[in-house]
């Protein structure tokens, strides 16, 4: 699993919900095409403008609402490297980790401006704003969630558990 990511920040507010990340009207689409609709509930141009490796940055309670896993897959397929927020709704968090997609909590995201370049180092557990030099430590991704993320997701993790039990 990759440890260091560098990219541009796309900044959103508090309580970004999964109906905004992937509106219900796209729920009937196959999973491999949901990236085209990532975050269109908030910014219709996001899927076209986001570059591979960019970060979504938000405040509190990111991913609240519906448990739709397609919300995580949409961000992932659109090329987003990770979501960095002050807190996550827990189902979104688990969906992210389960799909090998980092959902990173840091204490404060308000100093991050749109288009700031960020570096996320999952080895040293630090998010650095390359514009300001400010470095904030990663507050989550410990214990089982870290192990699942390191395996690349819950399917690989579960296969390993099943192997172990044999």
């Amino acid at each position, binding site marked *: 699993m990759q440890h260091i990511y560098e990219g541009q920040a796309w900044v959103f507010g508090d309580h970004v919900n999964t109906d*905004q990340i992937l509106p219900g009207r796209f729920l*009937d689409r196959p999973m491999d095409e949901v990236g085209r609709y990532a975050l269109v509930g908030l910014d219709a141009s996001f899927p076209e403008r986001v570059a591979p490796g960019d970060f979504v940055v938000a405040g509190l*309670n990111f991913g609240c609402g519906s448990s*739709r896993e397609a919300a995580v897959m949409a961000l992932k397929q659109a090329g987003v490297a990770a979501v960095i927020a002050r807190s996550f709704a827990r*189902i979104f968090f688990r969906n992210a980790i389960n799909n090998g997609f980092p959902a990173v909590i840091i204490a404060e995201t308000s100093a991050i401006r749109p288009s700031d370049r960020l570096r996320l180092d999952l080895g040293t557990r630090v998010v650095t704003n390359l514009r300001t030099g400010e470095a904030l430590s990663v507050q989550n991704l410990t214990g089982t969630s870290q192990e699942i993320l390191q395996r690349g997701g*819950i*399917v690989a993790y579960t296969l390993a558990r099943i192997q172990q039990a044999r």
Partner: protein
Amino acid sequence: MTLTEKIIARAAGRSHVAPDDEVWANVDLAAMHDSSGPRRIAPTLERLGGRLWDLSRIVLAIDHFTPAANLRHAEILTTTRDWARKTGLPHFFDSVGVLHNLLLEQGLAKPGTLIVGADSHTVTAGAIGALAIGVGATELATVLVTGQIWLRVPPTVLIRFEGAMPSHLTARDLAMVVLQRLRADFAIYRAVEFAGPAVEAFDLDERAVLANQAIEMGAKNGIVPASAAVLDLFSGDASGSRRPPASEPPLAGDAGCSYEATHMFTVSSIPPLVAAPPNVDHVMPAQQVAGLELDHAYIGSCVGGKARDLREAARILRGKRVKTPLRITPATQRVVEDTLHDGTLQVLIDAGAIVQAPGCGACAGLHSGLLGPKERCIATVTRNYSGRMGDSTAEIYLASPLTVAASAVTGRLTDPREFL
């Protein structure tokens, strides 16, 4: 230990757990629907070897894409039915209601047990004193194969409702007052337990509202310890299907158990409330926005389409006519049967309400009355996010069935006390 902690301890085979412990727990029941189910999990199940852990503990309901509004929906339903047929799933419900409500009315959810479902509103089963947790589809697939899930033990927050319910108030108003005071993220990674005299007197439909709305508070689960009346639902069932399993599932927390926080609400001082768009915690007295013109009124969903919700609406609508079109999506077919037999449906239809097929209806934003640009709807549904029920400029005001019915009669947002 709190009730939630005791249920996790039992499921993990431990004598004791404490908040922040991480455990592997044995799941008693796994649930999914046509949106989160076969079409999404089939590839994962294949990667995991394809063997299901226990068919008798798996529930599948077609509720989101039914009745199919287009051929894409129809295909999702065919995929779902084919999978149910192929696996020989005993608990398969095809278009007869919302998964969460079926778990309760069919006696599949049992007090003190661990239920995991691929839907955020799985928490609804906490109404019966179960620990019911929502997950995503891939995680559910791992549960279907292993029968296990990893859990971090959440701290429990206790919400107490003191006093007796006034007739103009419903359980939905109580859920909204919590969101108003504590906001939509106060319970992230936490269990929320509901108690107090008002809650003890609640029937299962009312308990389901509180448990259901725990997800809008950010909670891992919402739980209402089963009252004697709720437990009677189990013992009184001759078939025994509602009886809790033999291994003594816990029914209440230990005396003097430790809560992370306790919040008290006095119900007599709460007015009828609404949650204005675009967030579930944008809560205010109905009075404050009274007079707003409405394009639609809607009663339905897992939280607001139960028999009790229809009966509450009928209290207002008896002998009146709606001015704003009122659509009703009963949560399950049994809700239709029950409200047909007790005369409620007659009252609603006489008032001009349109009754639709049971299921998730328009709440999931897929069909059955989506909202157009800038339309305004008052509804008993789960969420009022932008775009939830259709166009992103449409406005959804969440309210109790009393407030929705009163508003439908006047054509404007209305405090139901005008009619009570």
